[in-house]
């Protein structure tokens, strides 16, 4: 770990004045002069301890007043401040009542200790999971290197990696909570140093590896996430979330699925189906959505939707198991809606 200075930000403006880079930029092209945001610090310190990130200044945004509020309005929906901890979301009754899939996703993310520390802003902005990316000893496109260690035909250990959109980087996004947020069509509110505020959907917040190998989201230096907004559900909104893991107590996702439906009776009127740990960023399966919309929710249609989702899957040498895993999990998630 390098020596760095510590800055306690007191307001959003203050923080934006101080910051000059992002963790992503710094990992791609290290300057060792960066001033970067730290919220819960869980992901950020992983990089620092590995020696891959050597910031000059850490700007602690964790104590900025007003960013740790959850509010719900039946008409406008829910706002979750970027500094709200995962533990607070996990125990919030309104989240459970109105956004069941999010409640489930948060409760299955990380461990109780980590949920006490981690914030929602940090969670969606954390970097991808790939052991080569996160190891100082290995080469990787995302660190500005010229090869992807995970793809190497004989030696690449890619059992946890992507089966969709895996043309360049094959890592998967670490946030299993983002899977649920995207399924609810949540938006991210971002403010820049000029004080301009923008609201982007989760679908637009994430950036595929094909577009930009250096980052998984649109965040630029001198931009801060202030809140995440979930649209209000209707009385016909139903949702569920399933995460598959090797170890049940806590583990990173091998494949997770969030499903949010508008139903009438047992028919799906509109579908939002998002897959986590399938692609380098959370993946909305248009194919599965199309296949189930305006259909009765039954075993046969659920399976058809699940198989439609997996038509485009291109597994790597060691992650072929993910295809049947997703077929089964998508089907199960859809059936849980009925």
């Amino acid at each position, binding site marked *: *770990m*390098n*020596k760095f200075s510590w800055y306690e930000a007191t307001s959003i403006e203050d923080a934006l004045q101080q910051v000059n880079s992002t963790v992503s930029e710094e990992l791609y092209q290290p300057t060792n002069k960066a001033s970067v945001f730290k919220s819960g610090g869980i992901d950020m310190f992983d990089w620092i301890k590995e*020696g891959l990130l050597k910031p000059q200044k850490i700007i602690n945004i964790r104590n900025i007043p007003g960013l740790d509020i959850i509010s719900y309005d039946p008409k406008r929906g829910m706002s979750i401040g970027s500094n709200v901890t995962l533990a607070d979301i996990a125990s919030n009754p309104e989240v459970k009542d109105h956004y069941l899939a999010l409640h489930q996703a948060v409760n299955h993310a990380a461990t109780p200790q980590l949920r006490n520390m981690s914030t929602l802003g940090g969670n969606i902005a954390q970097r991808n999971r790939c052991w080569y990316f996160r190891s100082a*000893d290995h080469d990787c496109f995302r660190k500005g290197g010229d090869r992807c260690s995970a793809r190497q035909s004989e030696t690449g250990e890619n059992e946890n990696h992507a089966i969709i959109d895996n043309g360049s980087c094959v890592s998967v996004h670490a946030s299993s909570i983002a899977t649920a947020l995207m399924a609810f069509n949540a938006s991210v509110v971002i403010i820049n140093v000029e004080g301009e505020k923008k609201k982007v959907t989760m679908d637009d917040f994430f950036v595929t590896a094909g577009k930009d190998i250096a980052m998984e989201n649109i965040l630029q230096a001198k931009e801060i996430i202030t809140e995440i907004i979930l649209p209000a559900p209707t009385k016909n909104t139903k949702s569920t979330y399933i995460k*598959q893991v090797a*170890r*049940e107590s806590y583990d990173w996702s091998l494949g997770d699925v969030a499903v949010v439906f508008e139903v009438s009776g047992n028919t799906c009127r509109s579908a939002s189906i998002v897959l986590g740990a399938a692609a380098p960023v959370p993946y909305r399966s248009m194919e599965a959505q199309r296949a189930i919309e305006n259909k009765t929710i039954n075993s046969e249609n659920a399976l058809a939707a699940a198989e439609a989702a997996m038509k485009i899957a291109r597994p790597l040498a060691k992650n072929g*198991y993910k295809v*049947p*895993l997703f*077929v*089964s*999990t998508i089907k199960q998630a859809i059936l849980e809606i009925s």
Partner: protein
Amino acid sequence: MDTRKEKFPYGIPGHNLSEIEREIPIEEPPVWPVNDKLKIIGKRVTRIDALDKVTGKAKYTSDVRLPGMLFAKMLRSNLPHAVITSIDISKAESLPGVHAIHLIENVQKEGEENKNGKYPMVKYVGQPLGGIAAESLEIAKDAISLIKVNYEKKPFVIDIESAMEMGAPIVFDEPITQQEDGGDVGEVHDGSKGEGNVRGPSTSSFFGGPRGDLEAGFKEADVIVERTYRTQVHTHMPLETHGVVVDWRPDMMMVYASTQNTNAVRNEMASIFNLPKSKVRVFCDFMGGGFGAKHSAGSFGPMAANLAKKSGRPVWLMLDRQEEHIAEGNRPNSIQYLKIGARKDGTLTGIEQRSHGTAGVALGAGVGRIAQILYPCPNFATEQYDVLTNAGPGAAWRAPGNVQGAFGLEQAIDELAEKLGMDPLSYRDLIDKSEVRKVERQRGAKLFDWSRRQPAGSGKDVVKKGLGVGQSTWPRFVTLDSSVEVKIHNDGGVEIRSSVQDIGTGTKTILAQVVAEELGLKVKDITVNIGDTFFPVGPGSGGSVVTGSITPPTRNAAFEAKKELLKLVAKKWETDVVELFIEDGQVGSNKNAELKMPFKEATKLMRTSQISKIASRSDDYGGFQQPWGLAYGDLGSVQFAEVSVNTDTGFVKVDRVVAAHSCGRPLNIGQLESQINGGVIQGVS
């Protein structure tokens, strides 16, 4: 030696508990009755250090802080096979805060040219090359990254099967003199025979060598199962990593160590640095776990000592998680070929076993003795080979070799039962001659409700259930070089001293229980000071030897100390010492109920400020250690598992385990359960 005859409780409670007569030394205390008749032994006694551990008061090796102490980091190779041409430490040396750098060099005789080069050949990623001590761990790490090692790369092999191929890169072209690290009781294989990267075979154990005639056995067989099973490499991962703090004072080398064997570390350090054993003190108060890989001083122990010597300061050197994974031991993998033959009626006619495993650059990748002894088949042979690869060395881990061996054998027995059309549990009743495991099967099956087991293919759901049973065995070992001192102080305090360490299983607590039982006191009245080599030598925590080795001398020492105390009371009361006893903290007399004296008061009668008695483990009175029988080869466990398999996703879930284990006299039921639970959880994960 004068002896007397005494009867010991012997057998399985609720089944065939009876007595057995042995000759014991005349001065030893009377044999304890069964646990029901004892007050503290065999009860659920809370660990004496439970509160200290859960509140963080307990200080582990990594918590040790000494005045002027430096923090050290090891330099490790990041190539799997290479010759080091040079090492440039100039930048590291000049980093402010760095106090000492030590590089590992080949030993060379004076005046002779070193044909092996200055530095040892690199044979695996993570091999220790040197170390740096600095004012903070961060500085030490930074300094390590400033060292420039120049290598000449060599071809390497890390995969067991590739390593066995003709023309594979050779890991050792010299014979290996190093012997296998089997913990306290592993077999010692000779690493000099073999070809290429393959060493061995080892064909015998302390249970003997091959038996009978395999070929004839297989001819007799109506049914044969022939299979190859594989197990993977595991790394140990105790919560506390390996490490030491070395404080090399002018008069003595003080070593705080996270170790399973204070005494072995003491002996190693004394021998490496040419010091008398009396001038090395190894201390381990609280131990953050170990599963077999913490029996020695490793390379970090001498490294810390060298850095302490060079800097003239105490040196803290704990490894990190990554170092644990790559360099501090693992359970080797295995590829086991098994051929088992049986007659139609199930009688075994032959067991043939051939295994290959890799312990990286070390030996010790055999599959143990399970196939040899679990079922008494007349025809048996094993060939166990070690395959060398450019990977970190293996180390003993909870029943070294036997875990892999039990997995393979029990799979094959299940397959054989299926071929014979027999239930796997009743088939074991038929071929297993162990009385202990018979009772374990009966009781386990009842708790587990084995009768729920359905024939294969019965489940129609996506998630299918499997119910299975597996067995294992581990002999009873005793370390006779096990001694304890019991002191009674004249303020009523009682103290136990030994170098034996509490690996986390609760050794401190059972020692206190034994002394409390013998002295008629409470567990909280006893102070346990162990894990210090300035005290009498205790056993290493390996091979399941500790409790059976250290508790008998503990009781004997307490008994001797008590006798001496009671003599003083007898003198005061003008009675005969034989009629005196201590119960509930009071000295009393069999003859005269009027006579009573609190223990604390009795200690005031002492002429000196303490009574001190040291006792050592006696031999087993010519009885217990038989190759077969209740107290040795016949021990073991039977475990039942209920497992769900999602046939869509392939996810396997262990729903329930019932474990029946034999253990001799249980001393503390809670701690015993923890042992078994820990074993099962570790096995599942």
